[in-house]
C-alpha cells in the first residue's frame, strides 16, 4: 500500500532492464488461451491483469513492442525477452508472471477457450518435484549464480560484479 492507502505493485523482466510500478487497483485477472496469446508467450496460455484503472509507470527502461495486429501491441524486454504487456485501445494489461509477487494476483476468468489445449485441465494432477529434488541437476544447482533481477526494485542494475 502507498501512503494514501492505494495498492501498489512492482514487477519487471527477468534481466531487470525493464521495471514497472502500478499504483491503484488492478482489474480482473485472467488467462487467455487464444492462439495469439499462446504463441506470443510461447506457452499454454497467457495470464494477464488489466492496469487500465491504475497508474502504470515504467520505472526503468521501456518495453519494446510488437504490433501483433492493427489493434493490439505486445510489449517485451528487448534484452531478455520476457513478455510484459498486451496493449489494446482500451488499456494496458500486464503479464502476471512478471509481477514481483504474482501469487497475489489469482486469475478469475478464462478467455479464448476455442484454442484451449486438450490437456490443460489435467495439468494440476501431474506429478511434481521441487527444483532441488532433481538429483541429476544437483551439481548444476549447487553452484548456480543467478543473473535474474531480484523480485523487488533496486537502485542500480546490473550489480557491478555482473557488468
Amino acid at each position: 500500500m502507498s501512503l494514501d492507502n492505494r495498492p501498489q505493485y512492482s514487477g519487471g523482466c527477468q534481466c531487470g532492464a525493464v521495471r514497472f510500478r502500478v499504483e491503484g487497483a488492478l482489474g480482473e485477472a485472467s488467462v487467455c488461451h487464444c492462439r495469439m496469446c499462446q504463441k506470443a508467450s510461447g506457452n499454454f496460455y497467457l495470464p494477464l491483469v488489466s492496469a487500465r484503472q491504475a497508474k502504470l509507470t515504467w520505472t526503468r527502461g521501456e518495453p519494446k513492442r510488437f504490433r501483433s495486429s492493427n489493434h493490439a501491441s505486445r510489449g517485451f524486454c528487448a534484452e531478455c525477452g520476457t513478455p510484459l504487456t498486451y496493449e489494446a485501445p482500451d488499456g494496458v494489461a500486464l503479464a502476471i508472471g512478471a509481477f514481483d509477487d504474482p501469487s497475489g494476483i489469482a486469475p478469475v476468468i478464462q478467455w479464448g477457450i476455442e484454442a484451449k489445449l486438450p490437456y490443460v485441465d489435467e495439468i494440476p494432477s501431474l506429478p511434481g518435484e521441487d527444483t532441488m529434488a532433481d538429483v541429476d541437476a544437483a551439481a548444476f544447482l549447487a553452484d548456480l549464480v543467478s543473473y535474474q533481477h531480484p523480485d523487488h526494485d533496486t537502485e542500480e542494475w546490473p550489480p557491478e560484479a555482473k557488468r
Partner: protein
Amino acid sequence: MSKAVTGGCQCGAVRYSVAELHDNAHLCHCRMCQKAVGNLFAALIGASKSKVSWTRGEPSVFRSSEHVERGFCEKCGTPLFYNYLSSERINLTIGSLDHPERVKPKGHDGIEGRMPWFSELATLQDYGETEAGDSAEWAAAIKRTSRQHPDHDTEEWPPAAHQTESKP
C-alpha cells in the same frame, strides 16, 4: 509419419525445425522460469541440440545464469527455449511449437514456486470463445489484421501487405 515438428515466434522472424522431440514435456514453476516467460510457469519440451535447425532468423539470448541461456525473438519477444549450456539437450517452449496440442506434458518441476491457486485454474469461469459473444466484433477485427505468423512454415515472411503498414 515423420517425427519432425516446426515452430517459431509470434511474428515469424525466427522459425525452427526439430527432427525429433524428447518425451519429457513438462512445466517448470521455478521463479526463474516464471519471470523469464512472464507467466505462471514455463512449458518446455526437450530435443537434442543436433536435431534442431533454425530455419529462419536466429534467436536472441539472455544468459540467465552462468549455466543457462534463454532464447527469444528480438523482434516480437516470444520466449523460445531454455538452454542448459553444457547439456546436449535444449528445451523448447511448447507454446512456440506450431502444434502444441500434440505434446502432452508429463509432470511438474520447480514446484516450490508454484502459485498457491494453480490447481484452481481449470475450474475458473469460462468466458467462451474469442470469436463469440460480446467480443466477436473485436476478434474479427484482430483476425483480419493479425500479423501473427501462421502455424506452418512459409516461403516468405512477412507478406507484402504487412510490410506496407506503418509501424507503431
